[in-house]
């Protein structure tokens, strides 16, 4: 006998796709479609004045990590690219660790406030999160540049004679990234700490744990999903950061994002830019997938 539900299901499916169509059209046109074309571009030959020649070539992918010495015609790892990759990974990891160092106590502090105050404290974290990244970066620039607040104060107090060069260094990029991505660490940490059952902490103390032992043996394992989520949320955008290193690094201290941009500007090597973009995307996807997997394993509420 024919299933009476099939007709109804088919109707429902048609309605669903009709409702989804406008969003999907826009997303295909201005998100997923262009990504596929970027993948195609990474296998083409660069044009002389930007753009591409429609001719298949591996050279862009080859150039991501390697370079051919023009004088000796030997192959070697591309030191310039590798040092930029290394800087990106190093700065992103340091950003993540520093965000965790500041973010964990802050999230804990908010989670232990009386219930009515918590939303207000969280609002203080959320406001910077939704304000212009450029403006926030710029606010830090004003603070640490040679004629900025910190140096002005230091000179006025007679502590230093010359302004300390802080801007346009790796240090300034790090400060800027920690500053702009800190809310991304606090949000998931707070989410998991808010659900923390403090009777477990009481049980820990009851069983002779010291404050530090309670933190390490009780609290930390319980909020681990939040720590992982926060770390990924900070690490991923740090790795692909473009604005902060551009403004803070002043063109000397490139990260992957700036290297990519370079290929579309002075570099005039669009296929290499495309290949670098896909590489960055692949790294980010691996990190996100690792996150999804751990989140699935660690947090029974998601399982």
């Amino acid at each position, binding site marked *: *006998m024919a*299933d*009476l*539900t099939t007709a*109804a299901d088919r109707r429902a499916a048609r309605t669903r796709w009709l409702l989804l169509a406008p969003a999907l059209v826009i997303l295909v046109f201005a998100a997923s479609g262009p990504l596929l074309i970027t993948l195609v571009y990474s296998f083409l030959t660069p044009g002389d004045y930007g753009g591409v020649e429609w001719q298949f070539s591996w050279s862009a992918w080859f150039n991501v990590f390697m370079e051919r010495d023009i004088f000796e015609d030997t192959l070697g790892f591309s030191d310039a690219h590798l040092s930029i990759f290394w800087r990106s990974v190093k700065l992103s990891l340091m950003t993540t660790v520093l965000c965790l160092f500041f973010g964990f106590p802050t999230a804990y502090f908010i989670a232990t406030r009386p219930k009515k105050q918590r939303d207000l404290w969280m609002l203080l974290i959320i406001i910077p999160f939704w304000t212009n990244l450029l403006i926030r970066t710029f606010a830090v620039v004003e603070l640490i540049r040679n004629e900025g607040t910190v140096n002005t104060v230091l000179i006025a107090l007679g502590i230093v004679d010359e302004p300390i060069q802080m801007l346009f260094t790796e240090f300034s990029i790090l400060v800027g990234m920690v500053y702009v991505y800190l809310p991304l660490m606090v949000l998931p940490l707070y989410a998991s700490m808010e659900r923390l059952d403090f009777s477990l902490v009481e049980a820990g103390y009851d069983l002779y744990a010291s404050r530090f032992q309670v933190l390490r043996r009780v609290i930390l394992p319980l909020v681990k999903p939040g720590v992982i989520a926060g770390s990924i949320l900070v690490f991923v955008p740090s790795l692909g950061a473009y604005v902060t290193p551009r403004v803070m690094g002043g063109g000397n201290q490139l990260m992957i994002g700036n290297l990519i941009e370079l290929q579309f500007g002075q570099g005039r090597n669009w296929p290499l830019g495309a290949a670098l973009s896909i590489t960055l995307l692949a790294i980010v996807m691996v990190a996100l997938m690792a996150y999804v997997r751990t989140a699935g394993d660690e947090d029974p509420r998601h399982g």
Partner: protein
Amino acid sequence: MDRRTGVRCQYVTTAINVRNLRKVYPGQPPVVALADASIQIRDNEFFTLLGPSGCGKTTLLRLIAGFENPTSGSLEMHGQSLIELPPYKRPINTVFQSYALFPHLTVAQNISFGLEMLGKPKAEIAATVDEMMALVKMTEMADRQTSQISGGQQQRVALARALAPKPKVLLLDEPLSALDFKLRKDMQLELKRLQTETGITFIFVTHDQEEALTMSDRIAVMSAGTIRQIGGPRDIYDHPAERFVADFIGDTNFLKADVVSVAGQTAMVRLASGQTIAARTPEGADVAGSVTLAIRPEHAGIEAGSGGLLSGTLGEVVYFGTDTHYHVALPDGTAFVVRQQNRPDRADDLATGDMVSISFAPDVGQVLRD
């Protein structure tokens, strides 16, 4: 214009005719929520679907309302198939378990919603809303927000809202489960009164056997997606057809017995003690050989000594105020409970460890279908 189908109330006794209705939810493995259920629900009756959670009673109700589509089978109202009709074309209304009152509308706006959707004239809507609010005694609350009234009042509004379009059939999905004990008792009487006054067929879903027994004209007991027994409250209680029904409704003693002879609805059975007694058999079932006999605790008597139908050792004696429960261990190890009403003139002379004899009248025992 009346959007509801032109189903006319003919002079037939069956309001809702459910035949071999089946609902399977896809999955691994597929879940059979309703397995080929068949019921005829009559006009003007208070019909209850009774069963534990997950037995398929709510699924059946939702199929009748049109919120779910059946996998197979037929569903008719006054001879017309409902299956192709969306919920908004079925002259059937529902009182939801959660009441589902629209939070952005007032009490009166909630009640008038269905009438507005049917495109009734304004004057008629106003009159019906007034009438309904009077019926459920909520007239003073007309302009309240639904969040500002108590649970019992919300219940009344939900009822008025479902009754306002004057449906042919009213579906009630455990409407009393959220109320406290006292309010529930009042609402049971209230619902019964409304059903009698309006003459609408009520299909009531509950897992509360007492609620089902007090309110219903007829009850369908369900379990595991199947209808186990349909009958009046007395039928169901006194003559459960199978073990599940006997167990689910009230307390029951189960005895092993052997059929000696059968005559019509009555069988002579031999008990473990060797005594023989008459017992009822379930409708349309062939009984023979070894069977299970169900006897309600209050249908049996107990006294000191031996020589009754059954004898055994008295275990615990539990005092309940209105009555006392005597737990007896029979020689073959079977437990048997006798419940006796307490009376001031009757002294409690039985004690744990006494030899006691249990007796019951012919025909109170019920042979169960296998």
